[in-house]
C-alpha cells in the first residue's frame, strides 16, 4: 500500500480535518461529513448542494464557496454519501429560496439523493435535482444505468452556482443546470488503474503497453482495452468520441482533466493535441481549463469534456468564483 494514510477506515475523516485546517472560509463538519460555505444561508439565494464518493477531489468539497456550491457531502471513497448528509447540508444552506441537488448519474448517488429529496421536502425545504450524465463511453440505453456523470459536473456546478449567486429563482437555476448538462459530453482514458484504500491494490490490472478507453472515475475498467497510444492519438480518439455525440455550432468550454497521477506537464501537452483536433474538426473554442479537477484517486489518464455555450452560459462561466479548487474573477 503506497498511500499516505493512517488506516483505510479514517481516510475521509482525516481529509476533512485537514480541509478544515486549510480552509477557514468553509465550515467542515467532520462528524456529519458536510462541508458548508461559512456565510450560508445567504439571504434570498438558491443553494447548490452536491456530493458523491470521495476520491475525486477537488470535486466536490473544494468547489464550495461563493459562485459555486453552497455545500458538499463527501461519501466514503468511491461510495455515494448517505441521505442524512444531504438533508443536513440542505437544512444548513437553505435560505428559503430552495435547494438544487447536483447529482452525478450513478445508481448509488441517484438512490441516495432521491431519498434525501423526500426527507428534505418532509422538513419543508423546497428541493430540485439535476442529474449529470455526460460520459459518452456509456450508451444511454435500457442496457445500462445510463451515462455516467464526470467532467461536466464542474461546468454544471460553476454555471448554476453563478446563476444562484445572481439571485435567480430555483426553477431558473435548475433549468440552467440541466441545459449545461445537456450541452456537455465527456470521454476518459486511463493509462493506469487507481488504488483504493479499502482494496489496497490497483482496481484493475493494466498490462504495460496497454490503455483503457472510455474509463470512468471510480477505478472501473473502460469499455475497451488497446495497445498504448500517443497523446496525439488519444486526443483524436477522445475528441472524436465526444463529437460523435454532439455537434457544436456554438463555441465550447473545454475541460482537459487529469485523473490524478498524470503530471500537469503531460496534461498541457495533451491539451495541445486536443486543441489541434478541435481545430481540425472545426469546433470553435471559448475557454480552456486544464488540470486535475474530477479525479479518480491516483489513476493515470485524462478526460476531455466539451460544453457548448451561448452568451449567457459563457457569462455565467466567467463570473467570479471563490472556492479552494476553482477561483477567478473579481
Amino acid at each position, binding site marked *: 500500500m503506497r498511500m499516505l494514510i493512517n488506516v483505510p477506515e479514517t481516510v475521509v475523516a482525516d481529509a476533512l480535518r485537514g480541509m478544515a485546517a486549510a480552509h477557514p472560509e468553509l465550515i467542515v463538519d467532520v462528524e456529519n461529513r458536510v462541508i458548508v460555505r461559512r456565510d450560508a444561508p445567504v439571504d434570498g439565494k438558491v443553494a447548490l448542494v452536491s456530493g458523491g464518493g470521495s476520491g475525486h477531489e477537488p470535486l466536490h468539497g473544494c468547489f464550495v464557496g461563493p459562485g459555486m456550491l453552497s455545500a458538499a457531502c463527501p461519501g466514503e471513497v*468511491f*461510495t*455515494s454519501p*448517505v441521505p442524512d448528509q444531504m438533508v443536513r447540508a440542505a437544512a444548513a444552506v437553505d435560505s428559503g429560496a430552495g435547494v438544487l441537488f447536483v447529482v452525478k448519474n450513478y445508481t448509488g448517488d441517484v*438512490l441516495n439523493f432521491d431519498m434525501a429529496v423526500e426527507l428534505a421536502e418532509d422538513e419543508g425545504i423546497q428541493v430540485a435535482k439535476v442529474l449529470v450524465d455526460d460520459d459518452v463511453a456509456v450508451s444511454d440505453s435500457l442496457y445500462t444505468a445510463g451515462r455516467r456523470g464526470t467532467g461536466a459536473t464542474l461546468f454544471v456546478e460553476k454555471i448554476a452556482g453563478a446563476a444562484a449567486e445572481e439571485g435567480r429563482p430555483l426553477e431558473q437555476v435548475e433549468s440552467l443546470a440541466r441545459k449545461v448538462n445537456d450541452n456537455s459530453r465527456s470521454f476518459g482514458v486511463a493509462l493506469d488503474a487507481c488504488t483504493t484504500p*479499502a482494496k489496497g491494490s490497483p*482496481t484493475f490490472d493494466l498490462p504495460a503497453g496497454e490503455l483503457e478507453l472510455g474509463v470512468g472515475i*471510480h*477505478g*472501473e475498467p473502460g469499455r475497451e482495452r488497446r495497445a498504448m497510444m500517443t497523446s496525439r492519438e488519444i486526443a483524436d480518439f477522445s475528441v472524436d468520441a465526444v463529437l460523435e455525440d454532439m455537434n457544436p455550432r456554438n463555441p465550447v468550454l473545454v475541460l482537459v482533466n487529469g485523473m490524478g497521477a498524470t503530471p500537469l506537464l503531460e496534461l498541457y501537452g495533451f491539451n495541445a493535441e486536443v486543441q489541434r483536433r478541435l481545430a481540425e474538426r472545426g469546433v470553435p473554442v471559448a475557454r480552456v481549463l486544464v488540470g486535475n479537477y474530477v479525479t479518480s484517486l491516483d489513476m493515470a489518464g485524462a478526460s476531455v469534456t466539451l460544453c457548448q455555450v451561448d452568451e449567457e452560459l459563457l457569462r455565467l462561466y466567467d463570473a467570479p468564483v471563490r472556492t479552494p479548487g476553482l477561483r477567478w474573477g473579481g
Partner: protein
Amino acid sequence: MLDADFFRRWMTAAAAAVDREAERLTALDSPIGDADHGSNLQRGFAAVVAALEKEAPATPGAVLQLAGRQLISTVGGASGPLYGTLLRRTGKTLGTDAAEVGEERLREALRAGVAAVATLGGAAPGDKTMLDALVPAVDALGESFAAAADAAERGAEATTPLRARKGRASYLGERSVGHRDPGATSAALLVAALAEAADV
C-alpha cells in the same frame, strides 16, 4: 414462531458473514465495479448490530426497520438504499406490534421487501444484481430456510455469465460477462445468515 431475538440473530449472523467475506466482496466489485462493496456492507452491518444492541427493539418489525434505517444512514452507494429498503419494507410489512411472526408471514413480508428493491432500483432478475439471488430465495422460502439459502447461492453463481444491465457493472457492456455479481453474492450471504438464525 419467530420473535425479535430471531431477527437479531439474523442480523448478527449477517454482520459476521459480511465481516468474514468483506475482502471477497470487494474483490468481486473490482473487475466490474469500484471495489467497495465489502467495506460498504461491513460498515453498514456493524452499525446495525450496534444500533440493535443500543435500542433493543422489541418486535420483529421494529428490528428490521431499525436495521434498514441504519443501512440507509451508513452504507451509501447503491447497496445501502437497496438493502436498507429491503429490510425496512420487510419490517414495515410485518408491522411493529406483533411480538412474533410466522414463517408464512415472513415470506410475504420478504416478498414485499424484494419487490420494493426491484421498484427502487428498476432492475429485474437477469440484470446481474442482488435480485438474482433475492428473488429465487423468496420463491424457495416456502420449502425451507435452507432451500432459500441454496437458491440464493445458486442465483448468485448464475450471475457470472450474465451481462449487467443495472448498476456500475452495466457500464462495461460485454466486458461484464464472466464475473460474478458482488451484490448477488452478498445477498446470498444475507439469506444464508437467515438460515443460520433459524438453525439454532
